[in-house]
């Protein structure tokens, strides 16, 4: 019993990764279910951050900083992406289109 308590108290890589992976799955769920494009986009950010957490954790447990540099890059790229993406969504909104996923169905088959 004591040993099990210790495993719960010793926060290792697995703990962080579990959180990261759960967040990642939540993000996926959001993308697949929410109808508002903005919320979908937020879910995407959630996934990115989940991945960031994983990278940071791995970086820590691998004893090198490569992962953290990677996170820097991801964050930067994500910021740029968000900027562009939101600009696109704003253009869409300018067309008086409600920003629903379901409206994006002119192109199909």
């Amino acid at each position, binding site marked *: 019993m004591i040993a099990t308590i210790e495993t719960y108290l010793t926060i290792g890589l697995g703990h962080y990764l579990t959180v990261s992976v759960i967040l990642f799955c939540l993000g996926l769920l959001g993308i697949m279910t929410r109808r508002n494009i903005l919320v979908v986009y937020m879910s995407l950010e959630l996934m990115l951050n989940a991945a960031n957490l994983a990278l940071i954790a791995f970086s820590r447990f691998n004893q090198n900083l490569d992962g953290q540099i990677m996170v820097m890059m991801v964050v930067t790229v994500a910021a740029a992406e968000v900027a562009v993406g939101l600009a696109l969504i704003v253009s869409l909104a300018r067309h008086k289109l409600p920003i629903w996923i379901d409206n994006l*169905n002119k192109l*199909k088959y």
Partner: protein
Amino acid sequence: MTIILFGILFLPIFSALSITFFSQKHPSISAGISIAISCITFLLTCVLCAMTQSQTLPIEIVYTWLSVGNLSVDLGFLVDRLSLIMLFVVTGVGSLIHIYSKGYMGKDPSLSRYFASLSIFMFSMIGIVLANNFLMIFIFWEMVGLSSYLLIGFWMTKGSAADAAKKAFLCNRIGDTGFLLGIILVWSCLGTLRFGEISNLLSTNPAAFSSLATITGLLLLCGVIGKSAQFPLHVWLPDAMEGPTPVSALIHAATMVAAGVYLLARGFDIFALSAAWPQGLDWLKFSTLDVIATIGAFTALMAALIAVQQNDIKRILAYSTLSQLGYMVMAIGLSYPIAAMYHLTTHAFFKALLFLGAGSVIVALHHEQNIWKMGGLQKRMPITFWTFLIATLALCGIPPLSGFFSKDYIVAEALHKNAYLGTIALVTAFLTTFYMGRLFFVSFIGRTRSKVSDHAKENSTIITMPLILLAIASVFAGFIGIDSYLMPHYSSQSLANTNMVFPYPSIDQAPDNWFKMLIYPFKHAPMAAILSICAVIAGGFLSFIFYFNAKNDILSSKFKTVSLWLKNRLYFDELYQNSAVWLQDKLALICDFIDRWIIGGIIIGIIYRIVDLIGRFCRFSQTGNIQTYTAIFVLGIIVLSYWVINW
């Protein structure tokens, strides 16, 4: 010798080529070339005969034409008595008819084409005669078919002529199918196609064919049936009368149709093999010769019957030809090739003469061929009349004309060997006289029956000269010893396994002067000779009663049904039209249907549609909704990773 043989064979084709390429626009030059060359070949034949007198026959000259694996085909010349006789007939009658044609065809604009075709025919026919192997015979066999086709369809704008040509070619082709298969069998069993080697092989080993002997013989017989227009492929010959009359005389009476008989005589070693059937078919006991005899006899009788009720002068003669060919084939079937060849030779003369005479009449009557519109020609066309009379008598078999001798041998042999066949032969002889008498009395004797015959005039020398020459030949061919000339050919070959009975026990006992020959039939088989003369007299008498000065045909009014059947040629054409042609048409229709709709439409369509459908179905997964896309995206990852991790 070689040069002469090459000359005989290739001069005609040279003539055909030069006419085609150089003198197409000048009919008279073409005619000149062609006539000259046919005469030259005749002269060369005479020279050849003279040369071979001093040499031992057969002479064989061989060049390789094709050689692959164990198949070797020669361009080979086989000179023996058989081929010499036949060559003589072909070139002799051929050159006369060439000359006659010049007169008969006169101003036809396509004269060049006519003579070119005629030259091709001469080439092909000589090829058949001189060939030393089966395949070469087959090649020229096809070529005579072609020239026959060209000449029957000479007036091709006439639908009936074109159809007749087509029919002739196709009927021949049906026979040739069997012929070629027979040749293949001969080759596969014996390994050679040369006649000389075949007869040597068969003499040393009669069982070389093992169980295929009769089948091979029958297949080869198919070729004969087609070419010699025997039952059941006889239907083309009457229609072939659509061609110019000289052509009918040369090809469809004297030479080409006789080629079948020549082939039977040539390959007699194979036909004479005793019955042998493969397992499963051995309940068929008969041998090839039985079949040949039966077919010949049946054709002879049937054609003679039909001839009784024909009204077209050329058709009567055509059926008569059929009937006589039946005799010849029957003679072979009775293992009596000499008689067949003998009859072939004499028949060539008098039947050619008959046709030429008929042609002369037709020209004089401006192409009227119905005998009931002729009549009273004996005064107006004396030469034609007399020569025609001689030919008729020769055909009927009145001694001492040639026809009597040759026919008598066959009748005698038939009576000797098989009473049924003998009876048929006698009945046919009776019928022959009857229909010839009918023809003769109606068209030549008595009063004129139409305006055209009123104005008939004798033709020019170029037409009558060949008539006279042929008449002379018809008279004398019977007792110049053709049979004894042929005898060494057969006695030199080992025919021990056949029950062939020679007219003479041996060559020494042959009659040595023409008079002995003249009476020999009465010495040899007096019964047969007397019976056949009786049949002739009976036939002549009956026809005299019925048709001398007759206004119309009494038979057709008295025996309506029989006459109708005979007039319609026993409905053979209709039968074939409704069976074979119908079947072929329907088969073609079915195949066409399958091709057009099943393969072209349904199968291709189905494959196309299935692919298309799958395409359309897959396409619907592109719903245009991003969340579907993401779901599939993730699902793909799930499947892949599940599969890889649990590998």
